[in-house]
């Protein structure tokens, strides 16, 4: 059973290129499908500009998708517009942002940040709000809660602030938690603590987690499944241990080899967003395995091994239409 079912999700943005401003469209997210399941962490991995953060923003409905569906339970929420519908959706799908400095109001106490969602969504009766705020702080390891609740954001360290952001997301008792690079702005010694907290929440609360990151090692540390994005598309997906041990897509292989000590890269160049992409594989310009068909036909995501799929004519050939 999946908590969130994403089908052929697509988001195009208008792009202005060149001095005269010829209009194109950036295919930030193109034909992206996956599922998030309770008690599982799915890592969404890619380089800057690959579209991974746009996926997270689409899922929390900060952007409206160009096409595709986002199914929560029985409902497709992709085209919901009313305030009430969106509020109901966001009570179940919460997001943690990268910047724990920018996502908290400097003029309000920690208590305020956690009490607000409890009241807005009517999670507990007013008289129980304080107790629940303390409970949430304890859940994320901020003790003693009475002391922390009275503080202002600037009195906390980056790691503590990110814990507050997580507690705030948990306040509304969501089913799905989206974390967009939640540790990348934190110091190295603090990061593991946040990742461990994610693991504990996954187990204790059976949350369906999407962990958006560019860091493959931390993805392997917390995640059960992986989605690899390149230029707006998922190019490989599957159980993370399996994918990292035996990657199918040449791009996944490139990412992995870039992280091997002493590695010499053969593939050059860099990823970019796809502006009005032509048919064909978006990795073709950098691919050491490219054959003729790669620059003519867009490869589909094909399950070439059990549970492991890739968009590659060579490594995961499908039936050509």
């Amino acid at each position, binding site marked *: 059973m999946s908590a969130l079912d994403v089908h052929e999700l697509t988001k195009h943005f208008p792009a202005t290129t060149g001095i005269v401003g010829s209009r194109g469209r950036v295919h930030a997210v193109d034909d992206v499908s996956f599922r998030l399941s309770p008690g599982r962490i799915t890592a969404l991995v890619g380089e800057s500009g690959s579209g991974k953060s746009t996926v997270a923003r689409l899922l929390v409905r900060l952007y409206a998708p160009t096409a595709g569906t986002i199914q929560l339970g029985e409902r497709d929420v992709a085209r919901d517009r009313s305030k009430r519908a969106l509020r109901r959706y966001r009570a179940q799908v919460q997001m943690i942002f990268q910047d724990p400095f920018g996502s908290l109001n400097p003029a309000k106490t920690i208590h305020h940040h956690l009490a607000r969602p409890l009241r807005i969504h009517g999670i507990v009766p007013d008289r129980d709000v304080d107790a629940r705020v303390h409970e949430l702080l304890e859940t994320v390891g901020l003790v003693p809660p009475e002391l922390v609740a009275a503080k202002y954001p600037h009195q906390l360290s980056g790691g503590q602030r990110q814990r507050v952001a997580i507690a705030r997301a948990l306040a509304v008792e969501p089913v799905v938690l989206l974390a967009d690079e939640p540790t990348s702005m934190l110091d190295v*010694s603090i990061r593991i603590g946040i990742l461990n907290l994610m693991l504990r929440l996954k187990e204790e609360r059976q949350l369906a987690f999407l962990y958006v990151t560019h860091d493959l*090692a931390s993805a392997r540390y917390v995640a059960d499944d992986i989605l690899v994005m390149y230029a707006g598309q998922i190019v490989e997906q599957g159980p993370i241990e399996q994918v990292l041990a035996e990657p199918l897509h040449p791009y996944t292989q490139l990412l992995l080899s870039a992280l091997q000590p002493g*590695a010499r890269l053969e593939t050059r160049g860099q990823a970019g967003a796809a502006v009005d992409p032509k048919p064909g594989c978006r990795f073709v310009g950098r691919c050491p395995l490219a054959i003729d068909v790669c620059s003519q036909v867009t490869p589909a995501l094909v399950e070439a091994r059990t549970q492991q799929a890739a968009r590659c004519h060579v490594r995961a050939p499908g039936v050509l239409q």
Partner: protein
Amino acid sequence: MSAVATRTLVELRGLTVDYGSVRAVDGVDLEIRAGEIVGLAGESGCGKSTVANAVMQILRPPARLTGGSVLFRGDDLVGKSAEELRRYRWRNVAMVFQSAMNALNPVMRVGDQFVDAMKAHEHIDRKAALARAGELLETVGIDPSRLRSYPHELSGGMRQRVIIAIALSLSPELLILDEPTTALDVVVQREILQQIEELQRDFGFAVLFITHDLSLLVEFADRIAIMYAGEIVELAEAERLHDEPQHPYTRGLMASFPPLSGPVTRLVGIPGAPPDLADPPAGCRFHPRCPLCVPQEPLYRRQLTERPALREVEPGHLVACHLAGRTA
């Protein structure tokens, strides 16, 4: 190590830098030998960039060098005139900053920016300067025709490589890299590191490499210094530091990077957060976060009250911990 690599190029003696009443760097001793790559690792606010700025002599108020000396080939830079320092910078030492790719002038062609840097420091005509710039671009893997490009026509990774090439245009003896690849994607990061390594082999300059990413240094540096709260707490050859870290902070840092292969075991990281340097802890600055600082420890009093000195526990391996050399 070759005979060349044993000559001392830069030596910091008791370097102390204050930002107002906050002591950001507190008595740092560090030697950089000709032709070697020294890594300086630590978390934000530990003082590693301030050390780099002191070596480059570009500390600006409120930062003030309040103690110690910075020797270049035995010559103290502290107290030199502005003109002497201007000649020293770039000719002897060049620096690449984290977001250096944004340091290029957006309305000037890449080639002209090379010419500017070279003309500011030596007598060279435009044609010769452009010829050398073209060669340098090639060595960092960029087509020399890009000399005619404007910065916005280049990707972030290419701009960062242009900056590295400009930094090398005056053949400095020391290249300081302050988080040179942090803002870049992993594949580009790997490419740039490969090129720096090749250039370093060909030109033989020394490198002071500053980063928070210890795993990168283990691969790249000859020696590594670990900074915590304004002090160097451990210094050793890269391989030794990786295989036998002695300081509990270094060990904690090592245990903060999950591996990409092998078994996935639960890591612990380091509890707590780095201290506020306006009010650093007494005794060992790491003691509030240290797993070895417990009341049962016979040296507990000393840990809480006495600052441990950086001392040699093995030849070339220095550690600032009361317990170093005693625990395995």
